[in-house]
C-alpha cells in the first residue's frame, strides 16, 4: 500500500548515469543523504536497469551503500512504518 501513495518515489529509467553526467557528485559512503536516493523505501538498492547508472558507478554505488549500512548510516532493510 505504500507503493503509489504519495507519489513519493516513482522511478523512471534514466538514460544517463547520474555520476557520469555530473562529475561533481562524488560517491562517498558517508554521504547517506545522496545514497539514500538510490535505495527504495524499504532500503534496498535500486537496480541499475531502473537507476540508469553505468556498470562502473553502480558498482561503486553498491559498495558505498553497503559501507554506509555497516556504520548505521543506512538501513539494511526497512524498519519503520
Amino acid at each position, binding site marked *: 500500500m505504500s507503493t503509489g501513495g504519495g507519489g513519493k518515489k516513482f522511478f523512471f529509467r534514466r538514460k544517463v548515469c547520474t555520476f557520469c553526467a555530473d562529475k561533481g557528485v562524488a560517491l*562517498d559512503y558517508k554521504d547517506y543523504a545522496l545514497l539514500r536516493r538510490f535505495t527504495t523505501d524499504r532500503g534496498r538498492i535500486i537496480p541499475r536497469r531502473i537507476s540508469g547508472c553505468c556498470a562502473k558507478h553502480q558498482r561503486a554505488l553498491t559498495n558505498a551503500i553497503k559501507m554506509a549500512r555497516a*556504520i548505521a548510516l543506512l538501513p539494511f532493510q526497512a*524498519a519503520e512504518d
Partner: protein
Amino acid sequence: MLRKYETLFIVRPDLPEEQMAKVKERATAAVTSQGGLEIAYQDWGKKKLAYPVKKVQKANYVYFRYLAGGEAVAELERVLKVHDDVLRFITVKLGDRIDPATFDMEEDRKGIFPFNIKPREPSAERPAEEGDEEGVEGAPRRSSGSRWGEDGPAENTSADEGMGDEN
C-alpha cells in the same frame, strides 16, 4: 611514505565530556604511537542510527583522518574494538604513498565535510557558514575523496561483530 586513512566510528551518546576526550586520546594515541600523524579528529555530533546497534538508537559520529602505515590502522582498530563506548567503526584508505614532509594538512582538512554535506555551489539558500576557503571556486574540494571502483575499493574494514540485534 605513508598512506592516508579515515576511520569513522560511532560512540555511545550522552557520554560526559571527559569520557569523549578519553576516546579521542586513545584513538589518536593509537595512531601516533605507530608513527602516524593526525590530520583531523572531528565530532560530527549525535545522529539517529539507521538501525539500533547494541540497543543504542542514537550515537555520536566521530571522524578521524590520519596519515599512517598499516600497523597504525591495526592498532587503532584494536583500541576501538575493545572500547566499550565505541559501537562500530569503519576504516577506508584514501591515499597512497604520501610524503608527510610535503603533505598539506591544512589544505586537506578543507576537503572534510560532515556526511559530505558541503556548501554546494554558492547559489541557493545556504551561504557557506564556514566562511572563506582560499581560492576555491570549482576547485577540487571533492578530490581528496575516495575513489572506489578504480583502484579497488580501498581496503575497507568494517568491524566489530558483537552487535547485530535484530536487524
